[in-house]
C-alpha cells in the first residue's frame, strides 16, 4: 500500500513502527486477557480434552516422534486399546514439543505443563497478527489493526483459548487465518509460491484440527463461485492447483487422515473443483486457438460430457463404497434433529447443541451487528477476495447456528467484517477534509488519506482534538461534514468500543476462565472458596489403587482419569466406539445382578461416579444418566428402556416416586448410597434436582440403599466424586446379594419349610463347574 505522498517523511517512516507497536500491544492484550484462570487458580490444564492432549504431549516429550506416531495406548478403552498415534491430530503436541525442545536448546528449561498451559494465549497473539494480514488484504492497514484488536479479545475465540485450554482449536484458529490470508495472497498474485505456502499452512492445519475440512470446502467453494461468476483467471488456476495438489498430498501424510482426501465425500468438492478448473483452463486455452463457433460446439460437447461423466463417476463410486458416504456428523450439520435420533452419542455433547440466540451477542457483542454492515461494505467493492469473505461469512453463520462449538469459526470472520465496517465508518467520519469544489481532487484525497487518518485516530482516540480541528472551519457544514455529526458518531463508537472491551473482559473473567477441574464458590463473607473434589479423588486413585487398576466411569471423565489419576479407563472422550460406551451405559443403568457380569468381563476394579446432589453441582452423572440409558438402548433395546426411567406421568424423578428401574439401577444406587445418612433426621434434599431422597431415618417404609457387588471406596469432601470398588466373586459361591445380606445379619431364607430346596445333584452326574 502506498503511503500518502502528502505526509511528512518522518511521519511516513514512523507508520510501520506504529503499526508494529500496535500489533504487539494487541498481542499483549490478547495474551493478558487469557490469564484470568492462571491468576485466579493456578497453571492447570482445563476441562476434558486438554487433559488427553497434555498426556499425549508428555508422551511425545518423553519418547521420540516415531514412537509417538506408533503409540498404542493400552491405558484407555480397556480392553480394546486405542491406536492413539494414528487417531489423533498431532499438530498441537508436536508444536508444544518443538517449543519445549527449542527452549531447552536455549538453556531455558520450562516445564512442559507450563508450555501447554500458555500455548493457547501465545497463539492467540499470532491469530491477531494473521487476522491483521487477512483484513489488510480485504481493506487496508487500519481495518487490519481493528480486526486484530477485535479477534484478540472477542469472547467467541477466548472461550477456546484461555490459558490452560490446551485444545486443538487453540492453534487451529491461528492456522485457519494464516491459511486464508495466504490463499487470498496466492489468488491475488497468481503465485505458485504463495499457493505452496497456503498448502504448507493447510498441512499444518490438517495436522492440528479435524476442522480443516472447513478449509477443504471453503476454498473450492470460493474458486467455484469465481468460475461461475466468470472471474476465472490464470491467477486462480495457479493458486488453486498449487494449493490443492500440494495440500492434498501433504495432508495425506497425517496418519489419521490417510486416504480420506480421495475417499470421503467431504473431500470430493475440492477434487471436483480441481477437475473443473482443469477443464475451464483447457477451455480457455482452446478458445484462444479456435474460432468461437467451433468453440461453442466443443464446449457443449466435451466439457458437458466430462462434467456428466465426473458426477456419474462420483455417485457410482459412492454407491459402490469406494468413496465413503457422508458421516453422521455431517448430516447433523444439516438436520439438527438427526443426531438426537440416530447418534445419541453426538447429541449428548453439550457443545454439539444448536446455538441459542443470545450467545451470538454474548460471544461477539457489537460485532454481531457490525458483521452484516461489513459484508455490505465488501459487497460494494466485490473484488475476488471479497467474495471469500462473503462466502465464509454465510457458511460460518449457518454452522454457528447449528452447533455451539462452531461459534469458534464464525468469530474470526465476524471480527474481520466488523473491522471493515467500523474502519469504513471511521474513514468517513475522521476525514477532516472539507467538501471541495473539484470532485476528482476530493476523491483522490480521500482514498489516499484515509488509511493514515484512521490509523492515527484509532491509536490516539482523541476526538476532542479532531473536534477542535473541525471547528476551525468558517462555513457552517451540514450532513456528514458537520462537526456535530462527526462528534456524535465518533463518540458513539468510542463508547461502543469501550463497552466492547468491558464486555469482553467481563465475559472472559466470568464465563470462560474456569478450569472446571477446580470449582470456585463464594463464601458468605464474599471470600473465594475452592472446591477441589476432582483432583482430590483423582489423586486418591493415583495413590491408593494398583497401577493397572481399571476404572469405569462415564466417558466424560475418561481423559481426566487418564491424565490426573493415571489409571486405565474403559471409555473416554475420544468416543470412537459407540458399543463400548453403550456397554458402560448398560452397566450403569442396569440392576446389580446384570451389571456385575459386565464389570467382571471388563476386569473393572473401580467405578467412579460424579454426584452433585450434596453440593448442587448440576453437571453430575444423574443429570447425564438419560444419555447413558439412551446410548445403551441404542444397542440393547430389549434390555434397557428409557421409558422405564420415567414415572407414569413422564417425569424424571429421583425421590420416593422414582421408578423401580431407576431405584435399582447401579448409577442411582452409587449416587445416593448413604446419602440420607448425612442428613440424619433432616429431610435428605438433592440440591441439584430439588427432590427429597427417601430416608430410612425419617420414613420407616423407606429401605436404605444397599450395594452388594460393589463397595464404597472413596467419597470426596463435597461428595462430587464417589469411587466404588468392585468386589471379587464370593469365595463360597454365593450371590453377592446373599453374601451381603448375611454380613448385615439377615438369615438366608430357604430350608425353613418342611422340605429342603431341591438342588441338581443327581447321583453320579459329573458336576460342571461354571466358575
Amino acid at each position, binding site marked *: 500500500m502506498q503511503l500518502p505522498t502528502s505526509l511528512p517523511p518522518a511521519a511516513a517512516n514512523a507508520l510501520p513502527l506504529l503499526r508494529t507497536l500496535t500489533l504487539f500491544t494487541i498481542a499483549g492484550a490478547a495474551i493478558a486477557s487469557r490469564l484470568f484462570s492462571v491468576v485466579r487458580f493456578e497453571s492447570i490444564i482445563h476441562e476434558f480434552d486438554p487433559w488427553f492432549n497434555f498426556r499425549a504431549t508428555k508422551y511425545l516429550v518423553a519418547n521420540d516422534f*516415531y514412537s509417538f*506416531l*506408533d503409540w*498404542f495406548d*493400552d491405558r484407555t478403552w*480397556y*480392553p*480394546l*486399546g486405542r*491406536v492413539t498415534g*494414528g487417531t489423533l491430530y498431532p499438530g498441537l503436541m508436536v508444536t508444544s514439543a518443538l517449543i519445549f525442545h527449542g527452549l531447552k536448546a536455549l538453556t531455558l528449561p520450562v516445564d512442559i505443563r507450563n508450555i501447554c498451559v500458555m500455548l493457547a494465549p501465545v497463539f492467540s497473539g499470532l491469530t491477531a497478527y494473521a487476522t491483521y494480514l487477512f483484513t489488510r488484504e480485504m481493506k487496508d492497514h487500519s481495518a487490519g489493526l481493528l480486526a486484530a484488536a477485535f479477534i484478540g479479545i472477542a469472547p467467541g475465540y477466548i472461550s477456546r483459548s484461555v490459558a490452560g485450554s490446551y485444545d486443538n482449536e487453540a492453534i487451529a484458529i491461528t492456522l485457519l487465518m494464516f491459511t486464508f490470508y495466504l490463499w487470498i495472497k496466492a489468488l491475488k498474485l497468481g503465485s505458485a509460491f504463495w499457493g505452496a505456502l497456503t498448502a504448507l499452512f493447510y498441512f499444518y492445519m490438517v495436522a492440528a484440527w479435524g476442522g480443516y475440512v472447513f478449509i477443504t470446502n471453503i476454498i473450492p467453494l470460493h474458486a467455484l463461485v469465481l468460475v461461475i461468476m466468470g472471474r476465472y483467471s490464470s491467477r486462480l488456476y495457479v493458486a488453486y492447483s498449487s494449493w490443492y495438489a500440494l495440500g492434498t498430498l501433504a495432508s495425506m501424510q497425517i*496418519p489419521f487422515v490417510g486416504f480420506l482426501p480421495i475417499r470421503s465425500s467431504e473431500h470430493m468438492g475440492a477434487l471436483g473443483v480441481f477437475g473443473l478448473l482443469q477443464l475451464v483452463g483447457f477451455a480457455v486455452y482452446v478458445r*484462444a*486457438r479456435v*474460432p468461437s463457433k467451433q468453440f461453442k460446439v466443443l464446449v457443449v460437447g466435451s466439457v458437458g460430457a466430462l462434467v456428466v461423466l465426473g458426477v456419474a463417476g462420483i455417485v457410482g463410486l459412492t454407491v459402490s463404497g469406494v468413496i465413503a458416504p457422508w458421516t453422521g456428523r455431517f448430516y447433523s450439520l444439516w438436520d439438527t434433529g438427526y443426531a438426537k435420533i440416530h447418534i445419541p452419542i453426538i447429541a449428548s455433547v453439550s457443545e454439539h447443541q444448536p446455538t441459542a440466540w443470545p450467545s451470538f451477542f454474548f460471544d461477539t457483542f457489537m460485532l454481531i451487528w457490525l458483521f452484516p454492515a461489513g459484508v455490505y461494505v465488501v459487497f460494494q467493492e466485490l473484488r475476488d477476495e471479497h467474495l471469500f469473505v462473503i462466502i465464509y461469512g454465510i457458511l460460518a453463520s449457518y454452522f454457528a447456528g447449528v452447533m455451539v462449538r462452531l461459534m469458534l469459526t464464525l468469530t474470526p470472520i465476524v471480527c474481520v467484517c466488523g473491522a471493515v465496517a467500523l474502519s469504513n465508518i471511521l474513514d468517513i467520519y475522521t476525514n477532516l477534509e472539507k467538501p471541495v469544489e473539484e470532485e476528482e481532487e476530493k476523491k483522490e484525497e480521500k482514498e489516499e488519506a484515509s488509511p493514515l487518518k484512521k490509523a492515527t485516530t484509532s491509536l490516539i482516540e482523541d476526538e476532542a482534538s479532531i473536534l477542535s480541528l473541525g471547528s476551525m472551519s468558517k462555513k457552517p457544514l451540514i450532513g456528514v461534514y458537520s462537526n456535530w455529526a462527526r462528534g456524535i458518531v465518533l463518540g458513539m463508537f468510542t463508547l461502543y468500543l469501550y463497552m466492547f472491551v468491558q464486555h469482553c473482559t467481563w465475559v472472559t473473567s466470568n464465563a470462560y476462565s474456569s478450569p472446571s477441574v477446580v470449582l470456585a464458590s463464594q463464601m458468605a463473607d464474599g471470600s473465594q472458596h475452592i472446591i477441589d473434589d476432582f483432583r482430590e479423588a483423582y489423586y486418591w486413585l493415583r495413590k491408593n489403587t494398583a497401577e*493397572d487398576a481399571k476404572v469405569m466411569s462415564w466417558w466424560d471423565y475418561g481423559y481426566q482419569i487418564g491424565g490426573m489419576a493415571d489409571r486405565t479407563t474403559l471409555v473416554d472422550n475420544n468416543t470412537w466406539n459407540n458399543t463400548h460406551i453403550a456397554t458402560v451405559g448398560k452397566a450403569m443403568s442396569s440392576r446389580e445382578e446384570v451389571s456385575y457380569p459386565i464389570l467382571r*468381563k*471388563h*476386569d473393572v476394579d473401580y467405578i467412579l461416579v460424579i454426584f452433585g446432589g450434596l453440593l448442587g453441582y448440576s453437571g453430575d452423572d444423574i443429570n447425564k444418566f438419560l444419555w447413558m440409558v439412551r446410548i445403551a438402548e441404542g444397542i440393547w433395546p430389549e434390555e434397557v428402556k428409557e421409558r422405564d426411567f420415567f414415572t407414569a406421568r413422564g417425569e424424571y424423578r429421583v425421590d420416593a416416586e422414582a421408578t423401580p428401574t431407576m431405584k435399582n439401577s447401579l448409577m442411582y444406587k452409587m449416587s445416593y448410597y448413604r446419602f440420607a445418612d448425612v442428613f440424619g433426621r433432616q429431610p435428605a434434599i438433592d440440591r441439584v434436582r430439588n427432590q427429597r431422597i427417601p430416608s430410612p431415618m425419617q420414613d420407616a417404609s423407606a429401605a436404605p440403599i444397599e450395594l452388594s457387588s460393589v463397595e464404597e471406596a472413596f467419597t470426596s469432601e463435597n461428595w462430587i466424586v464417589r469411587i466404588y470398588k468392585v468386589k*471379587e*466373586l*464370593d*469365595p*463360597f*459361591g*454365593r450371590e453377592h446379594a*446373599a*453374601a451381603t445380606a*448375611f454380613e448385615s445379619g439377615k*438369615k*438366608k431364607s*430357604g*430350608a425353613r419349610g*418342611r*422340605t*429342603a*430346596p*431341591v*438342588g*441338581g*445333584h*443327581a*447321583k*453320579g452326574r*459329573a*458336576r460342571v*463347574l*461354571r*466358575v
Partner: protein
Amino acid sequence: MSIRSVLVQLLLVIAFVGNALAISATGSRLLVVLDPSLKDEDYSLFFSDLDSRGLDLTIKAANDPSLGLFEYGERIYDHLILTLPPTQKALGPNLLAKPLLDFSAAGGNIVVVLNANEHALASVREFANQLDVFLPFRDTKLVDHFSYDKEASPLLHDALVLSPNSLLAPEIVSPTADDASKLLYYPGGSAFSLGNNQLLVPVLAAPETAYIYDPAEEATKSETPFATGSQAFLVASLQTRKNTRVTFVASNLLFTNDAFTKPDSFNRAFAAQLSAWTFAEKSVLRLESVTHRLVNSSELNPSIYRVKNEIEYEVELSRFTDGKWAPFYASDVQLEFTMLDPYYRLTLIPSSSSPSAQTYTTSFIAPDQHGMFSFVLNYKRPGLSFVEDKRVVTLRHFGHNEFARSFEIPNAWPYATSIFVVVAAWLLFVALWMFSANSESPSVKKTQ
C-alpha cells in the same frame, strides 16, 4: 541390619523345613472341637490315624472358654474338625457362622460332623446354609427299608450299609480294587440336602430307596420327606474359590472305633481319605510358574507384543502328594487367549518335567487384532484345587516401519514404475518445451 536379615533367613528356613515335613500343603495345626457328649476314646482310632499322619491335634471341648480360631486377627489353626454340642450355649461365640466363614476364607479347612443323636445348631445350620448345604431337622432319621444293616437295626432300618463303589468323587475318596468288596457302614443318623452351589462336590449320597423321616411325628409313613433317595447326602465337600475346603459329614458314627473295626469295614480308609482331602493333604495343585515370551526371544513375560507375533506360553504345575510336591500330569489343561472373548483356546501340551513340576507349553500366532489380551489359565476340576491365572498383555498394531516396503511387493511395482515414468515424462516435456523454438510470434494468440 545383618541380625535382622539373619533372623528372617532363619525364619524362612524354619518355615521351609516345617513345610517340607508337613503332611498338609497348608499346615498341620488341627483343632478338634469335641461335643462334650461324645467320648474321646470312642474315636481314638480316628484321632490316632490323624496324629500318625503328622497333624498336631488339639482337642478341646466345645464349651471350652479358651476356644477361638483367631488370635490378634491371625488364624491359629490350619484345620478344624467340628462336632456339634447339643446346645448353642455350649458352642460359644467363637464358632458362630461368621467366624467359621472367616476361618475358611482365611485359609482354614473345616470338617463339620453332625451328631447322629442331636439336631444341628442354628449357628452351624446358618454356616451350612451359606454354602448351600441344608441340614436336616431335629430328630429326623435316614432310613432305607431295602439296604439296611440287618444286624444293627433290624427294626428301625436306620443303619445302612453302603458299597464303596457308590462314592461320587474319585478325587476325594477313591477306593482301590481291594476296597470294592468292603462295606461302608452308616450306623445311623440323618442326611442333608444340597443347593445349587457350583462349588459343592457330593461325596456320598444315600441309596435310591432311602428317605428321611421324623420318627416322632411320622411313625408309619412320611408324607413330605425332607429329602429322598440320592437327593439325601451323607457326605459332601466344598472347595472355596480360595482353595480352602469344607466337608460336611452327616453322622459322627461313621468315624467311631466301632465302625472302624467292623468286619470288612471301609470306614477307616474312608475317614482317612476324606480328612486327607479336606486338610489339603492331597489333590492340591499349585501353579509353579507362568512364562510367556516371543518365540526365539530370551525376554520373559514382556508386557507388550505385536499382532501376528508368534508367542510361546509355558506353565509349570505340580501336585501335592505324600507330603511333597510332584509333577501334575493332565491332558486337558487349556490356555485361553482372550480379549472379552477367547480368540484362542489351546490345549497345553505336557513337555518336560522336573522332580517337582510338570511343564506344559504351547505356542501360537497372535491374532490380527490389537488390544489388551489376557493369557487365561482356568483349570477347575471337581475335587482338585482350582488353578486360575490371568495375565494381561498388550497387543499393539504394526509400527510405521514394520510393514513390507513397496519394492518388496510385486503388486506395487506397476505403481512405483508409473511414478518414475511420470517424472521422466515431465522432465522430457520441460526439456522439449525449453529447447523447441517457438516459430510463431505471440501476437497470433492475441489477435484471436
